[in-house]
């Protein structure tokens, strides 16, 4: 089983995130697909990007001339910063998140469920990456967005009634963006906020009971 042909590209998924951002808001980007958001935000939106290793005001990539080994994001990738950026220690950095000062948080995920729970840090017996900052990042932001491909490589849908993998956070996710659409966890089912052009409800690989309504 593979996904439908008419899915969003990664960049189109990223644009769905960008549409949700209010001008001037602050934004934490998780490792993986979410880091792409930094490259596509129009500067005139005045977004302040936070990376939990201790920087607010992440900008684009550095040049080979300006690159610095001490200037990285939480994915350990080289970055640059914009005017007005600040650096701080990790306690302050997570305090910004935990204290609700970062408006939006975008994370990757392995599974997400109708209760708004997220799993993204281990597959028992197979793979343990550790939770890193994810267990902290899911609490505090006004808007927690999970970006993930709708189906796993094996073809399993990642939007479930309840996650099967160990949780990163319970009931913490507000919006889910996959390559097929935008969803809101409603408790026992998902609300479809939007589908990628040409994608049908039947292609989502979800039971009718798991879909509460089409917006």
């Amino acid at each position, binding site marked *: 089983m593979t996904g439908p042909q008419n899915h969003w590209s990664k960049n189109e998924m990223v644009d769905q995130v960008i549409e949700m951002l209010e001008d001037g808001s602050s934004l934490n980007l998780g490792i993986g697909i979410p880091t792409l958001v930094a490259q596509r935000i129009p500067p005139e939106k005045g977004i302040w990007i936070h*990376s*939990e*290793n*201790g*920087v607010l005001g992440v900008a*684009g*990539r*550095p*040049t*080979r001339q300006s*690159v*610095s*080994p*001490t*200037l*990285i994001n*939480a*994915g*350990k*990738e*080289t970055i640059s910063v914009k005017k007005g950026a600040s*650096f*701080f*220690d*990790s*306690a302050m*950095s*997570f*305090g910004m*998140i*935990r204290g609700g000062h970062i408006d939006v948080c975008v994370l990757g995920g392995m599974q997400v469920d109708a209760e708004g*729970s997220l799993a993204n840090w281990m597959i028992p017996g197979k793979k*343990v*990456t*550790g*939770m*890193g*900052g*994810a*267990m*902290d*990042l899911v*609490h*505090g932001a006004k808007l927690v967005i999970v970006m993930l491909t709708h189906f796993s490589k094996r073809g399993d849908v990642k939007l479930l009634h309840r996650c099967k993998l*160990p*949780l*990163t*956070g*319970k*009931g913490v996710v507000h919006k889910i963006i996959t390559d097929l659409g935008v969803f809101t966890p409603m408790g026992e089912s998902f609300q479809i906020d939007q589908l990628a052009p040409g994608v049908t409800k039947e292609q989502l690989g979800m039971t009718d009971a798991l879909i509460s309504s089409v917006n």
Partner: protein
Amino acid sequence: MTSKVFKDAESALFDMKDGVSVMSGGFGLCGIPENSILEIRRRQLKNLHAISNNIGNSGRGLAWLLKEKQISRATCSYVGGNPDLEQQMLSHEVDVTLVPQGTFSERIRAAGMGVRGFYTPAGYGTEIAEGKESREFDLPCLLELPLAADFAIIKAQKGDPYGNLWFQETARNFSPLMAMAAKVTIVEVEQLVELGEILPEDVHLPGVFVQRIYQGSEYENTIEIPIFEDEN
């Protein structure tokens, strides 16, 4: 009066022994205390409890010690990017405790600042909560306890003879917190500057938290994932 300034890593780490707990600053390989780690490798200290966000990465940093089987216990938040740790965790050579990164930072700060425990929502409803006390505030929270260590080894861009430190860019991360939380904090700096050269307002870590300081040398300052503009 005894000076805090030491000649090099060898003299500064003179009393570090097998079996101690060591906090090591740095996020991935950014801001790691290269000289002190290499000295621990040279001395072949064993059975260490390493407390660090990544326990090295990409075969470097604390992974230098993993390769030599010097670490028996690790407290960290992230294993990804560190194949040496992943492998020794699966083979049970290293006993790994995973701590959510914000809780990790705050527990280290708590040890340094004399806070005996605190409540955070991070990890509630997950495996991390097992065996921990929980309590309902506006959100259900876990009680978390201070995380201290025998030694902290950290690196700063600039430091003065009293131990006042200044960190560059994102190299600050856990380092000032660890300096507060260890019995003995050993700092290596790129530049050992005169007392008064760091503006008192801009001291990132006051020297009272530092026991020993030395000028480091031959830094690799490895970039793990170099990505450049218009090249990806």
